[in-house]
């Protein structure tokens, strides 16, 4: 399956969800990249009078929080945390999931049984429960959070990749690779894997979205990295001021929802563009 990159990009951008999603995500990325330039003092500096509503003071377009920190600085720096955690966690869970699923589906038999029972066990423990257990035990820091999210989310990818491998391993091209004596390693990674990249790419956008939500939830509960201002941190702090200053929660919540929404839109568009056969549904 080879597709013309130009036509792929063209079709993706022609897709309404894809276009809207990519615009929002590019905005979030721009926020993350520019955070250091626009707010070089970081999100923790106390900038002015506490609890100024958005629009009251030109200097703080999104208002200030209960301690007088600039919310706009928090949102911009929070974008860094969310995107970094989302991207890294998704990458790791794809690596673990692909290894498990690929080996499981390719070899079948007892190897498959063993690996699938481990996957079952991982999916049985409620994932957010294991995430808070891992973060609580190992200690709250960005690497731990990335690790925890990767550990709880790889089973989904493993199942997906396994299903693809089970289907593809019966195909003629795999048989002929075996006949010419190609090593299992090369067949798995060089021959079969490239053929199931499409579903992995589609799943990865949802994976990033889930990772961002889990990170925000952990920070919201106070289990996030104490040195990083995340959207979840602002949400958690703003909760106590809900009665008098609800904008403190509304601002990071909107950023979070828009980012997740954009990733889901991108996922939908990728699904339609990469699997054109399903489009008639």
């Amino acid at each position, binding site marked *: 399956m080879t597709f013309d990159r130009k036509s792929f990009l063209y079709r993706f951008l022609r897709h309404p969800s894809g276009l809207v999603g990519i615009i929002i995500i590019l905005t979030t990325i721009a926020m993350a990249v520019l955070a250091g330039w626009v707010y070089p003092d970081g999100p923790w500096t106390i900038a002015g009078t506490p609890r100024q509503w958005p629009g009251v003071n030109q200097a703080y377009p999104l208002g200030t929080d209960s301690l007088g920190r600039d919310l706009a600085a928090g949102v911009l720096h929070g974008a860094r945390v969310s995107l970094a955690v989302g991207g890294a966690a998704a990458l790791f869970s794809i690596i673990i999931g692909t290894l498990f699923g690929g080996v499981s589906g390719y070899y079948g038999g007892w190897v498959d049984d063993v690996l699938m029972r481990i996957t079952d066990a991982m999916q049985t423990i409620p994932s957010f429960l294991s995430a808070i257990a891992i973060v609580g035990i190992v200690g709250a820091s960005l690497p731990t959070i990335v690790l925890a999210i990767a550990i709880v989310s790889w089973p989904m990818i493993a199942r997906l990749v396994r299903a693809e491998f089970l289907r593809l391993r019966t195909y003629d091209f795999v048989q002929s690779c075996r006949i010419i004596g190609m090593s299992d390693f090369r067949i798995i990674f060089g021959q079969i894997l490239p053929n199931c990249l499409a579903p992995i790419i589609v799943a990865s956008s949802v994976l990033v979205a889930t990772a961002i939500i889990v990170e925000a939830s952990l920070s919201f509960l106070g289990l996030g990295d104490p040195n990083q201002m995340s959207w979840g941190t602002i949400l958690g702090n703003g909760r106590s001021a809900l009665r008098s200053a609800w904008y403190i929660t509304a601002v990071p*919540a909107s950023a979070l929802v828009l980012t997740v929404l954009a990733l889901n839109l991108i996922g939908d568009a990728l699904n339609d563009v990469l699997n054109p056969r399903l489009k008639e549904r």
Partner: protein
Amino acid sequence: MSTLDPVAGVTAQKRGRLTRFVTGPLPRYVLRRLSQAILVMLLVVIGSFILVKSAPGDLVDVIGGNSDMTAETMELLRQQYGLDQPSYIQLFHYMIKLATFDLGYSPLNAAPVLDVILGRLPVTAILVVVSVTISMSIGTVLGVISARNVGKPVDLGLSILMLMFYATPSFVIAIAFILFFSVFWNLLPIAGFATVGTRATGLMYAWDVAKHLVMPVGALCTFYIAIYGRIGRAAMLEVLKLDYVRTARAKGISERRVIYVHALRNAMLPLVTMAGLQVSSLVGGAVLIETIFGLPGMGRTAFDAVSERDANLLLGVLFISSLSVVVVNFIIDMIYMVLDPRVELA
């Protein structure tokens, strides 16, 4: 997907399956699923034990931290609890105790872990059961409406709504609910399972609890309404193309009956599978919701166990919640097997 046999006699055949399932010897499929479930629980126990044991400090450190104890007394306590032995022996002892449902002692609550958990399980169970039921019914109905009006404005509107539900995390919904229903309009109680110090009994008590649970259940549901809605729509569109639906229409059966009786029955199968997955993630989601709404459930207990470093309690919560998930999934598999003739009984 193979089409189902529309010929009469399917129901009779199905009844035969059900009788055979209930009265006959346990089918091989059931035995296989049962052994898988036990193996999975074993892996869960080993995995959570390794995780919790990798934490710095042990039970005695937690107890010792709350009182002034000499190093000798702590050493003595360690021997008493068997904490001085190598980890694999500790794991072995732990598994033997688990087999008799002895989950150990929780220093945080000064009570046996099992008692603590059994006291909190009902709240989470109510939350989960009500949420699964509500999200499945609403999601399915919305999915069917979407599928029937595919491509029309109703379908588009519902799809956008589903997309919003799908993208909004439960704790954000929870806060939005509190903001509107409690802070702005003062309609619903902001937290708790029942009014503090209430003397209401019977129906009045149930009404009081129901008012407290509207927002938590609502917040847990929205995401799953979206999932059921999307899956239901796709499944319905798939099923409506099948021959037996055309046959039913050709026989002159009313459209409502064709949709809700004939087609929905088969479109429900993927939704039932989803319900199994949902239970596990709802228990996880309950951590946030119970913390926000101050509900005394399992999720809240897990959070307390993590923040207070109560290892036994954490292990207990992981074990009991995983066990519940395994049991629910096993039951769902059995229901599925009876419902779907294509799953082999032999």
